[in-house]
């Protein structure tokens, strides 16, 4: 009987326990071999002293399958490596660091917008708009400037589609896409430079 295994690696996998078996990181279809024995095949082990991530190359999986079931026809579908991240316990948000970064962004954003307004002479433009619309020259057109300030925040929220996300549509926001791209890039880097298959040489 023909022995066949198809597997498709997940590009990313987070683990809590140390041992990684094949079904954790891939979808598997088998022919002529018991499914469970392939599924629960140990792929690698992240020891405590080990680094926080490990790259599993498809070639390594093929090697392991062939060692356990000689003469098997192994077909790789999809990504050729899977990156395993260790889920670190108790390492969620760091409150103090977070508050620091939050304040940094808050104050920085305030400073940046003031610099921008000075840079483009926003005050003069506002005085001019006030003069055009109402006909009177006012030194501080607060009727224009306070709504302007609130609109500034509204515009940013609108761009990121945060508040109205449920109401307007289900699409991901630019921020989520940006986050995804960043992680994809990191994964691509890691899968080349942290891959033991290439490092050995």
């Amino acid at each position, binding site marked *: 009987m023909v022995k066949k295994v198809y597997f498709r690696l997940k590009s990313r996998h987070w683990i809590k326990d140390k041992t990684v078996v094949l079904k954790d990181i891939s979808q598997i279809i088998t022919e002529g071999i018991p499914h469970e024995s392939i599924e629960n095949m140990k792929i690698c082990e992240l020891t405590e002293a080990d680094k926080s991530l490990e790259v599993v190359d498809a070639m390594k999986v093929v090697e392991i399958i062939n060692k356990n079931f000689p003469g098997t026809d192994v077909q790789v579908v999809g990504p050729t490596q899977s990156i395993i991240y260790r889920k670190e316990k108790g390492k*969620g*948000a*760091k409150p103090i*660091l*977070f508050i620091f*970064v*939050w*304040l940094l*962004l*808050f*104050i*920085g*954003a*305030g400073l*940046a*917008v*003031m610099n*921008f*307004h000075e840079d483009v002479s926003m*005050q003069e*433009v506002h005085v*001019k*708009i*006030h*003069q*055009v*619309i*109402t*006909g009177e020259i006012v030194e*501080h057109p*607060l*009727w*224009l*400037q*306070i*709504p*302007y*300030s*609130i*609109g*500034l*925040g*509204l*515009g*940013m*929220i*609108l*761009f*990121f*589609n*945060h508040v109205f996300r449920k109401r*307007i*549509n289900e699409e991901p926001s*630019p*921020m989520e896409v*940006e*986050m995804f*791209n*960043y*992680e994809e890039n990191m994964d691509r880097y890691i899968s080349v430079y942290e891959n033991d298959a290439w490092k050995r040489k």
Partner: protein
Amino acid sequence: MSLFILSMIGLSGGLAVGSGLVAFLTVLGVVPRLANLTKTENLLSLYEMSIVGGAIIGIWFSLGDPAFSFTNSLLVIIGLACGMFIGLLAAALTEVLNVFPILAKRIGLKGKVYILLWAIVLGKIAGSLYQWIFFVRS
């Protein structure tokens, strides 16, 4: 003759500034974003006309010297619209800078980038209000 040269300079200056403005807006992708949010991608050409029309009225307001006598409530609407537009630009620029994903990863806040976004948004509002109410008046 000098009038001809002057108008040629004006025309070429206007061409440069106009195309620069449109290029700037295109690079930031504010218009597609808005069209996408409101599901009106098919009306993009109308939005283009709106931008051109707005620019021309802006020229009239800044170079000419018109003076209407509308009420303050119109000012509130215009102020809000101006602010939202600047806010869109600011958000687009912030996104280009790519700081959020890195920051969020560093402080272990994956999935809650929005809390950091609120810092920027509130900071912008606070900075702007402070500038208009206290800073330029002192």
